[in-house]
């Protein structure tokens, strides 16, 4: 798993690839935690190169969403989510906790 961050004026884009599972979710958690500790609460997760997300991965995103949305100071949004991942998230009823954009440009533009 590679995790890269790109800062924009109003948000930070975090891009990762491949699988987000129990083995590497802590790596993503560490990157997101550092951002929120730096006071960056508007986060776009670019998932266009992600092909699998296990529950451990969703919990990293849910926890980060909790931190960001506290005091209405920001939000985690998702971009480029594949249909299979979107369907699995919908099936377990967790789709409602995230805004999903087709691509990074529209996600960044939402802030």
């Amino acid at each position: 798993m590679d995790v890269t961050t790109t800062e924009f004026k109003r948000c930070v884009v975090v891009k990762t690839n491949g699988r987000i599972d129990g083995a590497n979710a802590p790596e993503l958690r560490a990157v997101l935690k550092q951002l929120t500790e730096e006071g960056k609460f508007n986060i776009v997760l670019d998932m266009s190169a992600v092909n699998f997300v296990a529950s451990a991965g969703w919990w990293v995103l849910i926890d980060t969403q909790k931190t960001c949305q506290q005091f209405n100071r920001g939000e985690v949004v998702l971009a480029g989510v594949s249909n299979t991942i979107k369907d699995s998230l919908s099936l377990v009823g967790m789709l409602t906790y995230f805004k999903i954009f087709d691509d990074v440009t529209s996600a960044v533009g939402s802030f």
Partner: protein
Amino acid sequence: MESICQFVTQAAHEAGLDEAATYAVQLAVDEAATNIIEHAYQNSGEGVIECSYLILGDGLEITLVDHGIPFDPDAVPTPELNVPLEDLKPRGMGIYMMRKVMDEVRFEFSPQSNKLTLVKKKT
């Protein structure tokens, strides 16, 4: 974990499952294996997970066997969804996801081993 995923992906293709059903199998097996590593083997880094499959006329059956600590699946709470974000809790989400995406999830325990059978039918 990736090798188990590749193994069951191959099995799903052999069974003729479509993309969504294949993803469901990958997800359920990943959650199951994660539970075995974390709970049955207590993150010790040691222990065997035997993974096998059977192609059914209408789908795929995957079996995972471990020799770690058994657990009572009925004791795992069903996570509360449709609640405000701040009330969402992770406990039980792995098993909940498994049950949601598969057609059958069966746990069997014996003194020697724990066996989990997962069935996904063709859509």
